[in-house]
């Protein structure tokens, strides 16, 4: 118990802060912060598996998040029959062509010896393949995008419950990680960082501009929900009764019947949004706890020990007969898959998919700040980092507004400097993140909750 005191203390402070937000701002805000904290925690767990367990830098988190979001769209949206009729055949043909191309390349690279001739052959197959695919796809894509472009203009999905997309998102992200890993894992640490960053930008470019698949920058809105809708709740008997029971003390104070009914209605409206958010919190909490148990088990298993050995001394691990390349690829896929789950969760919670919103600052670098601040190699640390940094990210604006007002209290309200500072309050969050990262790196390089491995 004593050993874990700092973990418990850190988490209690974090929960206390969120509860304070609930009391002073509103429970709605507190819960939305909490939900996004949970999603961030899943992302940091993914990044922590790669960086903390294996020392691999993955700056492509944004790409995997977006793929998870894409999975949510493709799973939950109802198929657009008209679009399938218009251009489905062409798209399916392209899919077959791509598969054929991959097999052709595999065949050549397996059955011929490495030579200049083989390289040129593969390059020729890729170039010719891309040209053929473009020619086949062009009419299909145009037809699909022409189908009611204001509302659909894409193929739609499978019309399944959105919760399945969390698993599918993991598979999408894992699949991409397999390809990226095969290409880039041989590189030295900082090159790997740059390569993954650039590859994730390519993924975002594709998601943004292939309208037949994702609707691109036109966004997909109104996704299905795993939780009830507020409007339905507000007319449900049991929910109104529940709210009434919960607030019976407050309601009893109001003597006028009409006033009491109005107050109750207000409470039901507020209660319904809080209730929906609580549903999401429950779902997310289950994911976080399951992942935490799995990752902790993995960390202390023989496999986890092997990963740490590889991280700390690759050559020695190699000499002991461990297949470093294979393990790196495996852990790269696992970590990315977890990030993919988080991406799907994020889109599920928002109910919309906006490819334009995926930016490296928010989805890659911020997640890295979380991992570093929280403590790499320690799952509890990574989760705490996700909570603390996301909390600061949201609450930075009110905090800096308070500080600005405090320090410029002597100035007149229309002083140029004061007005300018108050206008630029939203950007103080970057300053806080940067300073936080620099201070942690300097004075506590292992993070708030450092890695601690006990051999039992």
């Amino acid at each position, binding site marked *: 118990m004593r050993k874990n005191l700092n973990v418990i203390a850190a988490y209690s402070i974090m929960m206390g802060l969120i509860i304070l937000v609930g009391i002073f701002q509103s429970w709605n805000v507190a819960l939305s912060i909490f939900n996004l904290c949970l999603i961030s925690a899943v992302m940091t767990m993914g990044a922590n598996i790669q960086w903390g367990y294996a020392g691999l830098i993955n700056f492509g988190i944004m790409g995997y998040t977006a793929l998870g979001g894409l999975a949510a769209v493709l799973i939950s949206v109802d198929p657009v029959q008209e679009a399938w009729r218009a251009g489905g055949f062409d798209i399916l043909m392209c899919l077959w062509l791509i598969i054929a191309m991959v097999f052709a390349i595999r065949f050549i690279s397996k059955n011929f010896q490495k030579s200049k001739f083989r390289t040129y052959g593969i390059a020729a197959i890729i170039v010719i393949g891309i040209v053929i695919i473009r020619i086949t796809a062009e009419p299909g894509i145009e037809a699909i995008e022409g189908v009611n472009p204001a509302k659909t203009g894409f193929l739609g999905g499978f019309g399944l419950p959105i919760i399945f997309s969390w698993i599918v998102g993991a598979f999408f992200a894992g699949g991409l990680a397999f390809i990226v890993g095969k290409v880039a894992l041989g590189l030295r640490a900082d090159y790997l960082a740059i390569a993954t960053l650039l590859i994730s930008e390519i993924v975002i470019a*594709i998601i943004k501009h292939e309208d037949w698949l994702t609707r691109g920058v036109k966004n997909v809105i109104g996704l299905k929900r795993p939780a009830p809708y507020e409007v339905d709740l507000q007319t449900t008997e049991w929910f109104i009764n529940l709210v009434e029971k919960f607030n019976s003390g407050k309601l009893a104070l109001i003597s006028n019947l009409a006033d009491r009914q109005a107050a109750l209605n207000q409470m039901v409206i507020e209660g319904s949004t809080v209730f929906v958010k609580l549903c999401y919190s429950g779902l997310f909490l289950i994911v976080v706890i399951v992942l935490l148990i799995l990752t902790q088990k993995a960390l202390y298993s023989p496999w986890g020990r092997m990963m740490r050995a590889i991280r700390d001394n690759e050559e020695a691990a190699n000499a002991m007969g461990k297949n470093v390349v294979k393990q790196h690829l495996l852990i790269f896929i696992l970590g990315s898959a977890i990030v993919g789950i988080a991406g799907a969760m994020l889109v599920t919670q928002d109910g919309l998919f906006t490819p334009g919103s995926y930016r490296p600052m928010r989805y890659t*670098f911020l997640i890295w700040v979380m991992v570093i601040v929280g403590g790499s190699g320690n799952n509890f640390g990574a989760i705490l980092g996700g909570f603390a940094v996301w909390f600061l990210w949201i609450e930075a604006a009110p905090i800096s507004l308070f500080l600005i007002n405090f320090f410029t209290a002597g100035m007149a309200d229309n002083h140029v400097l004061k007005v300018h500072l108050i206008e630029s309050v939203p950007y*103080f969050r970057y300053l806080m993140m*940067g300073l936080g990262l620099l201070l942690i790196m300097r004075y506590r390089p292992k993070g708030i909750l450092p890695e601690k491995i006990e051999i039992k």
Partner: protein
Amino acid sequence: MDFLNAIILLLNYIFIPALTYGSQLALGAIFVTLIYGILRFANFATGDMMSFGTMVTILFTWYFQSIGISLGVLPTALIAIPFAILFMIIYMLFIDKFVFKYYRVNKSPPVQLAMVSIGVMFVTQAVVRIVIGPSDQRFFDGEKFIIKAREFKEMTGLNEGLALKSTQVLTIFVTIVLVSLLFWFLNKTKTGKSMKAYSDNEDLALLSGIDPKRIVMITWIIAGILATIGGALYGLDKSFKPFTYFNNMLPIFAAAIVGGIGNPFGAFLGGYVIAFSEIFLTYAYKKFFMYILPENMEPESLVQLLSTDYKFAVSFSILVIVLLYRPSGIFKGKVL
């Protein structure tokens, strides 16, 4: 005549813009490569340092404009740049002293320094946005065009116009002067040679009496000059927006790696490789073929290899291919 028209078309839409963009990338890429070669880390704050330098230039330009100093046909920013460079050098040395020095002295692994540079990136970005705001700023004044498209058409009687912006000429001219000066410095002077020696083999360089503190300081000074001029030229030619500068970091990295990281000359050429391939692959050649092919063979589609949406993706794909087949870059840089 048609053939001439086709050539003018390519010059106007591919060659000149690519040359300008390539010069802007090249300055940034040399900056990245110098930091990588001598301080040995990937500097993720590159784009934001450039935007910081540009911001200072803009502030000085506004000041000069307000007190009525101008260069006539040339942009006022040219007078502001030297002051901005001075400011930027102080900023770079300040950051080095309070942030990077600690890790360098402790011989931290390069990854840690890269992470620290992300912290610097956040802070610099915040400062820029707090001081000047996130929106578009234009600070160009003076004559905008050297040759206007319409004038060119009247002058030559061709169908295609050739527009030459003064900022394009300025960018290419300043880049050539600056890069030649830099290469002269690196290859001919004693300090430059000792920098190269330090980059090749730190221990041997220290043994032969090279002062590492001085080398590091000079590197940051050169970096400050490159960042300010590169950023200001980009801002003059297009416009200044902090977010675009952050995004430009990616093609700059691509250019530095394609050219062979740690090799300034490679980075210089890498900038042009990236710029030309981006524009070559995303340009619609329909009009070009209309001029050079006989009438019955004219293409119906746009003859565009990739849509312009994939402009960035092109440079990154080139980078991936280079990393796969020639990890040390086209011009041999440090071995990965």
